[in-house]
């Protein structure tokens, strides 16, 4: 059960002259939900995005250190970024369905990764069911995805990630743009998905972190301050900074 799925070793990251991540060492366990918490600008989203190499798009991002998925070196030249992103999916802060139909939002990635045509409809149905969306959209798969509500759009974005059967799903504040009921649905979904996937989620919501996490990492000013089980972080944090943050004294 305690297999390490994803890890970062001595990770330093800077944008131009500004150092965002300072010597991060962290390991994420398989089939667990790990929350990254900390005040805005502490580098938690930046850390998340370095695992699926989204920083490749920023020419001034400089990355030092090693990141691994199992034994795969994520930044080794020989490893293709598209394969890595297929194995490490991502859900963004604001729901970002593609300007296509609901069905095409899911079939898009399957086409790109050359899944056999006849398997695609079943894979899509399965992913929509897993994302608690099937019953709501099964009769209108041709509808433009932007016509869905915000919460449905976010579940669609999760389904779109799930359909590729990645090993890890990165979530960058997936509920920050949603109402409480939609948030509850996504949280239920996350708890159910962890059976099949390893989930790392950035959140600003302490209650949310408490409700869904197995482990919690607290970051501050680019450093990993404390990393422990959810219970320890919220009930018995060792570091003073963590105590203050959990206690609501800053952040």
């Amino acid at each position, binding site marked *: 059960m305690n297999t390490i799925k994803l890890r970062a070793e001595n990770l330093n990251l800077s944008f131009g002259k500004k150092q965002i991540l300072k010597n991060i060492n962290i390991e994420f366990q398989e089939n667990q939900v790990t929350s990254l918490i900390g005040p805005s600008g502490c580098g938690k989203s930046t850390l998340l995005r370095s695992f699926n190499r989204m920083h490749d798009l920023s020419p001034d991002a400089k990355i030092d250190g090693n990141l691994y998925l199992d034994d795969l070196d994520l930044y080794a030249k020989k490893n293709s970024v598209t394969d890595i992103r297929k194995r490490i999916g991502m859900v963004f802060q604001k729901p*970002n369905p*593609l*300007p296509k139909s609901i069905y095409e939002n899911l079939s898009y*990635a399957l086409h790109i990764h050359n899944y056999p045509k006849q398997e695609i409809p079943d894979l899509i149905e399965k992913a929509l069911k897993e994302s608690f969306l099937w019953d709501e959209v099964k009769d209108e798969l041709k509808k433009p995805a932007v016509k869905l509500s915000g919460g449905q759009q976010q579940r669609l974005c999760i389904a*779109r*990630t799930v359909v590729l059967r990645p090993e890890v799903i990165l979530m960058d504040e997936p509920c920050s743009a949603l109402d409480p009921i939609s948030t509850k649905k996504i949280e239920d979904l996350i708890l159910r998905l962890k059976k099949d996937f390893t989930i790392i989620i950035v959140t600003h919501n302490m209650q949310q972190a408490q409700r869904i996490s197995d482990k919690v990492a607290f970051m501050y000013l680019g450093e990993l301050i404390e990393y422990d089980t959810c219970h320890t972080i919220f009930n018995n944090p060792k570091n003073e900074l963590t105590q203050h943050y959990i206690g609501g004294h800053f952040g």
Partner: protein
Amino acid sequence: MDASRREQIDRLNKFLFKSTGLLTITLLGGIFLMLFSNSVLFFLDVSPVDFFTGSQWDPDTKYSFLPLLVSTFLVAVGSMIIAVPLGIFTAAYLSELAPRKVQMILKPIIEMLAAIPSVAIGFLGIVLVGPGLASIFGIQNGLNALNGAILLAVMALPTIVTISEDAINAVPKSHREASLALGANQWETLFRVTIPAASPGLIAAVMLGLGRALGETMTVLMATGNAAAIPEGFLDSVRTITATIAIEMGEVPYQTTHYYALFAIAAFLFLITLVVNFTGEYFANRLRKFHS
């Protein structure tokens, strides 16, 4: 005393601005009226059936619009076949792939193309493109539809590139991120997400480029050979509506059928470019709404 003075000046200013605005509209309306009243006089002399069906433009006897219309579209559509892919790919390269330095150099250069006077481009057609085409295709002279199409493509390129680039830039970054995060590469993202999302703007770009190509006069007059017969292909000499008016207007006797005929073809050109431009504006507006 002072207050009423200021009010007077205020009223005067309002009147001035209102009249300049009205003047523009009056001018446009006036052009429209002049073209169409003279066209009506033409159709009193020549039946519309002959005008639209004949195959020869031979002033004093035969007034067939068809060769001119076909010529105009051959050149304009030909120029779009060249300029649209070139323009859209250039725009895509500039906004998606080019390093910032290349972007900074290339963009002003492309925009500068628009500043070249059309007569200079026509000159290029006579001394460079024409002879080039003649030797490539083994024909007597290179003053033909293809020559015109190539030159018009150059002239329409700045419009198409600039508007396409705006359209591609307006596609939210989140679409691109969504696609890339699913493991699509840059090409797949560009062709399957970004360009489809930008398509209303791209259509606007093409329409405005086409409008430019349809209305261009001097370049086609210089470079296309001016044979007023229905062309059979791109290597035939053609004579566009614009070139016909420019060539014949100077010598035509006042208020003859021939004189009115030139107004009639100008009126049709006006209608065609109007429709093309409206279509372009319609799509451009839709894009703006979509993104605000």
